[in-house]
């Protein structure tokens, strides 16, 4: 019983983390129709910022990681500007290329070996709650995940720019006709996703202390799976999808017999193909909005 609870808590924590990454991907897809393969490199950049600031105090390191993610997000916005009017296929190839380029910049700067971040290792210690042993970082990621998701939800619901973003995500052309400024919304979306990437890195930096050039990419890919499975067209559905993948990864990792666990990735990606074929709009999107299509 306690092990079950333990697994569920871990699953919720990873789910929360993936949900935040998935939210970033979905936000950008919403306003730009762009699946950003290079999103993971924002996480990698923030992680290397943690490596470089080892000597500094914790608040400074947090600030540095977030600042680097934000700056990278703005640069990425600039670099991807020529692809704004491209087809989703072209921009998919472009972000794939950008992701590879940035990963190799990291190879150039830091080599392919893992580099230690040494970020708040104390948070990996467990606290005993009855029979339950929960690591501090699990609590942190649960609380932080919930807080970030609520904050973004509030931002989208209650602020002017949030309203504009939702309008742009629903129908970019109409939103522009009605006076939403495309540049402002897209740049803001990039900044917001940069902030999310920075925050995710702070949690990841504790849990997975070694950063490699493909650190962010490896984390992006399952989150992307979640977004596709959940439904890219809706913010809530995409985020839920991310949560679902994180949650399922932990649960299946426990439930599956040891020999088959290595094939977990195959199962996840097979699910992606099935969802694309059977429910192309995603599992968590109701089908009745068909009439909207032109």
């Amino acid at each position, binding site marked *: 019983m306690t092990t079950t609870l333990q697994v569920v808590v871990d699953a919720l924590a990873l789910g929360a983390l993936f949900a935040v990454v998935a939210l970033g991907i979905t936000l950008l897809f919403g306003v730009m129709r762009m*699946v950003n393969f290079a999103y993971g490199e924002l996480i990698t950049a923030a992680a290397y910022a943690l490596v470089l600031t080892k000597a500094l105090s914790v608040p400074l390191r947090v600030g540095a990681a977030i600042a680097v993610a934000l700056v990278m997000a703005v640069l990425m916005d600039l*670099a991807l500007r*020529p*692809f704004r009017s*491209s*087809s*989703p*296929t*072209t921009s*998919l*190839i*472009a972000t*794939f*290329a*950008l992701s*590879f*380029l940035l*990963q*190799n*910049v*990291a*190879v*150039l700067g830091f080599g392919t070996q893992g580099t230690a971040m040494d970020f708040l290792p104390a948070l990996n210690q467990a606290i005993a709650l009855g029979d339950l042993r929960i690591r501090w970082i699990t609590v942190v990621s649960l609380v932080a995940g919930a807080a970030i998701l609520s904050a973004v939800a509030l931002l989208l619901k209650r602020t002017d720019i949030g309203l504009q973003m939702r309008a742009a995500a629903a129908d970019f052309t109409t939103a522009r006709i009605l006076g939403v400024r495309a540049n402002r919304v897209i740049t803001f979306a990039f900044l917001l996703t940069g902030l999310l990437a920075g925050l995710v890195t702070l949690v990841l930096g504790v849990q997975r202390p070694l950063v490699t050039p493909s650190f962010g990419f490896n984390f992006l*890919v399952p989150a*992307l*799976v979640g977004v*596709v499975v959940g439904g890219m067209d809706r913010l809530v559905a995409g985020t839920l999808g991310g949560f679902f993948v994180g949650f399922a990864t932990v649960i299946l990792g426990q439930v599956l017999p040891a020999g088959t666990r*290595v*094939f977990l*990735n*195959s199962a996840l*990606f*097979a699910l*992606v*193909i099935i969802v*694309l*074929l059977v429910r*192309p709009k995603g599992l968590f999107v109701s089908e009745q909005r068909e009439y909207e299509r032109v």
Partner: protein
Amino acid sequence: MRRKVVEVAAPALLLIAVAVVGSVLSSGLQFQALSILVTAAIVVSMYVFIGNSGVLSFGHISFVALGAFGAGLATAPAAVKPTTFPALLPALANMEIGNIPSLAMAAAVGGLFALLVGIPIMRLSGLSAGIATFAVLIITNNVLRNWEAIGPGAKTLSLIPTTTSFLQATIGALLVVAVAFTYQRSRWGRMLRAAREDPAAARSVGIDIRAQRLIAFTLSGALAGFSGGLLVHLLGSINTQQVFLDLTFITLAMLVIGGIGSLWGAVVGAVLISGVNSLLAEAERGMGLFGVAVQVPSGTRLIAVGAVMLVVLAWRPDGITGSEEISWWRRWREEPVGELSSSGE
């Protein structure tokens, strides 16, 4: 008629030129020239589907991987396989066939897998097709890496006969080009290209787009498998990471830079970028250039290729050849070929 000849003769002559120049160079550069030929075969096989259908595929390197592991396992000495890879199926462990049969097998394995995968996936297009084929790539890698009954798993498969000489590489690459050319000139090829330009019009004249895409996908999977066979016989050893994301990225870059919509574009892109790539790879290891020692840090290679790819995608989405076949006279056409510059869905 003359135009038709030059369309296949020019890419073929370019490849033959690479082979001829390559064969007189030092042995290190000879290897690079061989790998240009094999890479060109891979890129042309991708072009057969991506170029003719206008549908993106991230999954073709999985067919290359299957062909490479198929041909590699079939030709590695049966005397050592059962001891090095105890989990291998007895049929595979005891198999030892010749060079040519192994290439045929590689083509068969690649084509069969593409057919199986294509039956469901060819319903998709645009972004969904991109993501689904990416999923195929990840699944293939994950299974090959972990299922030790059908391959070496995470270990490196070695002792494969290195039979890809200049003769074999050249004939192999030319064969792929010839098949690609014949296909795109055939009735099926033209039907698919018509569907790429205007799906609605194509459907209205009775073209079954899904079936045509499936034919192209299977053919291109078979060619990719065959190229994988050439690759493994060039390298002599292989592991799953060599036929995964890096190769997907670089071959896709070649196709995009050359021009996704034409055979000439595929060959030019492959030769040009793998030439630059080979040069930089040598430079990363340190080499003498006109008496000056040149050494660039590792990683430079893919950064350069990535940057060129982004620039081409942004400002010349039809590639440096404009996605047009070569011709005797230069035709200045205004309209773009379309599959990348216009919306995919």
